[in-house]
């Protein structure tokens, strides 16, 4: 039997170890990017690191609170300003309500189908951004609300200006948002000016979105506002997404190259809103009644 004193025992050499761990990492990477057999693994690690992320957020919290404290000195002024804005918005809201009523009536007259559920049927949850990754490869952010706060996969995330992204990974107390700018992320949109429908996709670069597969002679202009069309059911309709930045119409190609910039501060916010689309119950009951009447 070989007896080596403990001091001289070293195990496999560094290169062997590196080889073993490289193999292990490659397996993990392949699993994570292609096969996705064990989503629980990510969940488990996510639960482990959650307290660390919480601790890391403490300085930001203190910073915010001191900021609030300093801001509280000119609260009166701000209150006045906000009241003014409220009154302005109030007027517009009243106008909007009148228009909505008129629109509904006109639609009834035309016998048009009711639109997809209006934006008022959404519920918003305020969430704070726990972490923004540093490397330019992952266009994702981590929020401090998770499945324990009744957040669900696929819910839209917005800020005060427009769409930020969509929830793609859920942990018990936190969740991951894939940003608009992610390469694999698309949003169904509509041009406000002429209600042209299309899909805007991320390019993997910050502040750049792409409208793909629109022909060279499409009626689209620089500065056009793109809002969600509501098709697909993930994003509620009418929320601003992007403005068209530049258009390159190359007559030899089939499609125009249309680059736009997101309106929301995709990489600049501390707080965002998670929009939960409340499933319209009336719709289901209507369908049921239709089926029942069909049976009869």
């Amino acid at each position, binding site marked *: 039997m070989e007896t080596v004193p403990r001091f001289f025992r070293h195990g496999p050499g560094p290169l062997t170890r590196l080889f073993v761990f490289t193999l292990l990492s*490659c397996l993990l990477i392949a699993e994570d990017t292609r096969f996705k057999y064990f989503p629980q693994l990510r969940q488990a690690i996510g639960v482990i690191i959650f307290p660390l992320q919480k601790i890391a957020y403490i300085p930001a919290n203190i910073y915010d609170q001191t900021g609030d404290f300093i801001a509280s000195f000119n609260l009166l002024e701000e209150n006045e300003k906000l009241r003014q804005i409220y009154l302005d918005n109030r007027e517009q809201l009243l106008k909007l309500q009148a228009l909505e009523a008129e629109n509904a009536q006109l639609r009834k007259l035309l016998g048009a189908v009711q639109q997809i559920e209006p934006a008022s049927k959404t519920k918003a949850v305020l969430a704070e951004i726990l972490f923004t990754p540093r490397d330019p490869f992952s266009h994702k952010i981590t929020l401090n609300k998770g499945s324990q706060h009744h957040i669900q996969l696929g819910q839209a995330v917005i800020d005060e200006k427009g769409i930020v992204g969509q929830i793609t990974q859920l942990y018990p107390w936190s969740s991951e948002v894939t940003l608009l700018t992610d390469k694999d992320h698309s949003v169904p949109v509509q041009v406000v000016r002429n209600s042209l429908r299309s899909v805007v996709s991320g390019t993997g670069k910050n502040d750049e979105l792409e409208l793909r597969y629109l022909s060279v002679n499409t009626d689209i202009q620089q500065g056009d506002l793109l809002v969600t069309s509501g098709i697909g059911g993930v994003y509620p309709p009418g929320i601003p997404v992007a403005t068209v930045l530049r258009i390159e119409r190359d007559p030899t190609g089939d499609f125009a190259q249309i680059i736009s910039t997101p309106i929301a501060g995709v990489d600049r916010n501390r707080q965002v809103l998670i929009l939960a689309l409340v499933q319209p119950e009336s719709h289901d009951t209507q369908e049921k009644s239709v089926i029942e009447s069909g049976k009869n």
Partner: protein
Amino acid sequence: MNPEKIKNEQLNKEHYIAQEDVHAPASNWFVAASLIVTLILNFLPLQGDILVLRPDFLALALAYWNINYPYKMGMSIAFGMGLLMDAGNAGVLGQHALAYCVVIYLTQIFGRRLRLFNPLRQAPQIALILLMMQWVIVLVAVLSDALLPDWHYYLPIVTGVLLWAPASYLLKWLLKQKPDPDAL
């Protein structure tokens, strides 16, 4: 300096001891705490320019322990910390794990050589190790359909190198804080 003078300096016993090359022992708790603290530093919710400049604290800590206390550090620890970093980073699982393993491998190979230098002179060599680490991360990202990053991506190497010497001296100082034996 002529070679003889250097030789004399190295042979001068008192000078050698005064160089403080003999490390104070580090407890396992201290190593573990430093890794957790650096992971938290990596998770700080920074934004904008500061985020671009943020060095990879965890990689620096792993390199420091593996150079100065190789028996306290291993590839399995680095792999585990890398997994935690990946999950927090919302990136590909295994990306940072592989990169940190490469850091451990390189520091293990060059560790004995690096220990000959003082932290100020180690710093440029650390830059190369950090560059290799970032290339591993880029390689994994590109293989999983990402675009090549622009030059901002390599700025943390600069900040990491600038941080290396102060951090090394700080850790050395922390490790030397021993209770006074005459206190009782």
